[in-house]
């Protein structure tokens, strides 16, 4: 029998007091490494104290592994120190780029999905793995646009890099849902294409629909501001039939005062974890017809 994944939430310092009071509601906290590196003494102290009370996993937003320049080894050393300090069992980052020399957009952007780009990222993942002692996981991002020169599917691109490097996948279920909706592909086929065991952690969140005069249709955006949608929970349940992640993390970055929604989402995740097979065929069929 497979061990159930730990269910938790991303640590957010703005609601640190509430999180500390509700630690019993979570099995694990995900710490954003960059907040520890660049954040206040208060944030670091709170995180390091919490590391004595609850398991933590480490997530990064500042590596920009997709930028076509050599990886920042000093940054990796800082990451390694925080990972060690909070005793994280894994370190995850986005398969994306956020900056180029002299400019930092601080927003996750896609790279062209080609074998050439994959090859360069594979070399960088090896560098990361040689600097950070714990397993490295890559996360699928949500993207609004696709590079015209992409030749590989999302799943093939991720699989190629993970297979060649031994890196695991942090599967962001919400990002999968948004991408499938925005770009018109079947998220269940994406999940079917992932080899069992590749997913080592998962993210879930709730987003919003965005409309704009310059857009032909509404787009879903990864705002981390709303309760998890039923479609995302259905995808989570379906994914759990083939994957055994060690942790499922709820990401919430906006409307943080709605703390009850966080607890309700945690309960909804736990319910799906407890019954991943419940209604599987129905869920899949319904979702496919909706797409």
């Amino acid at each position, binding site marked *: 029998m497979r061990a159930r994944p730990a269910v938790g939430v991303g640590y957010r310092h703005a609601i640190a007091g509430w999180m500390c009071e509700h630690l019993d509601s979570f099995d694990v906290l995900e710490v954003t490494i960059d907040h520890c590196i660049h*954040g206040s*003494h208060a944030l670091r102290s709170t995180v390091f104290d919490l590391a004595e009370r609850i398991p933590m996993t480490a997530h990064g937003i*500042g590596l920009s592994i997709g930028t*076509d320049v050599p990886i920042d080894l000093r940054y990796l050393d800082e990451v390694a120190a925080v990972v060690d300090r909070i005793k994280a069992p894994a370190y995850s980052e986005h398969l994306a*780029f956020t900056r180029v020399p002299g400019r930092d957009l601080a*927003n996750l952007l896609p790279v062209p999905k080609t074998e050439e780009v994959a*090859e360069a990222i594979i070399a960088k993942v090896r560098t990361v793995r040689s600097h950070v002692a714990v397993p490295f996981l890559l996360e699928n991002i949500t993207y609004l646009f696709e590079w015209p020169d992409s030749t590989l599917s999302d799943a093939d691109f991720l699989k190629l890099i993970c297979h060649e490097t031994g890196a695991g996948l942090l599967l962001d279920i919400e990002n999968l849902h948004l991408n499938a909706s925005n770009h018109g592909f079947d998220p269940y086929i994406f999940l079917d294409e992932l080899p069992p065991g590749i997913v080592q952690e998962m993210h879930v969140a709730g987003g919003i629909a965005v409309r704009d005069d*310059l857009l032909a249709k509404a787009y879903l955006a990864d705002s981390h501001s709303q309760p998890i949608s039923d479609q995302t929970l259905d995808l989570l349940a379906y994914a759990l039939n083939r994957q055994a992640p060690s942790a499922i993390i709820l990401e919430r970055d906006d409307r943080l005062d709605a703390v009850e929604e966080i607890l309700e989402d945690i309960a909804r995740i736990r319910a799906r974890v407890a019954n991943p097979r419940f209604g599987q065929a129905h869920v899949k069929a319904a979702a496919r017809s909706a797409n």
Partner: protein
Amino acid sequence: MSKRLLDQQISLIDHLATGAVIFGDKVDTPEALVGIDAGLLHLEARFCHDKRVGKIAEILPISLELLGGHRSVILREFVEMCPPVHIGRLENARQFRDFLRDRRRRTRREQPYVGDVAACEIACAEVRNGAEGHSPEVADDIQTWTAIRRSPVTVLLRCAYDVRRFFEDGRFEGDLTTAAPRRETLLIVARSPNKGQPQIFELTAPVFDLAAALDDWIDPAALCLTAEAQALVAHLSRCGLIEVRR
């Protein structure tokens, strides 16, 4: 990866940081980005911009409020002149403060004291970030001190306007419609031992100069302090502005 990919990436980030793209004006797509939907590039640019302004607003709520109806015009000008260079909130806020000061010098528009308000807000954020867990030793008996320094979690500010009324316990409390009086004001922002939020204190010129001179540990005997000055230093120590070593 080939050089071409980095060129594509530079072109994309430059494009997404352009005011015309962010605000939805008609703009030609650079050659490196041909084939990507212009509407989606606009949306991506908008997301990036909103995130950046959100970071600035977290640190500079009063300054942005003071800009009133000019805010959107000023933010657009900021975008055009100051591309994003850092992920951090404080770094983006400092970039905006510098832009506001420079704009004031160039145009003489808007309230002349906005730059001072922004400086105070940033100082409050810096103190908030640094103050937690910092517990300096407090001691009245100056004869036992071997060294003193200004607390590292304080910020000294020299302002052209008295903007203190906009701040109360580090939060906006003031009336936006009343202008701040022009008066050189020497300030120290600190978190006093019993207060949760940063406090802004006005200092006299001699005390400001003394505080400025205490950047690093110094033997108080070397300062040849009078009895009155010693009492003052002891008081500043109790306020958390000066640290002592025994």
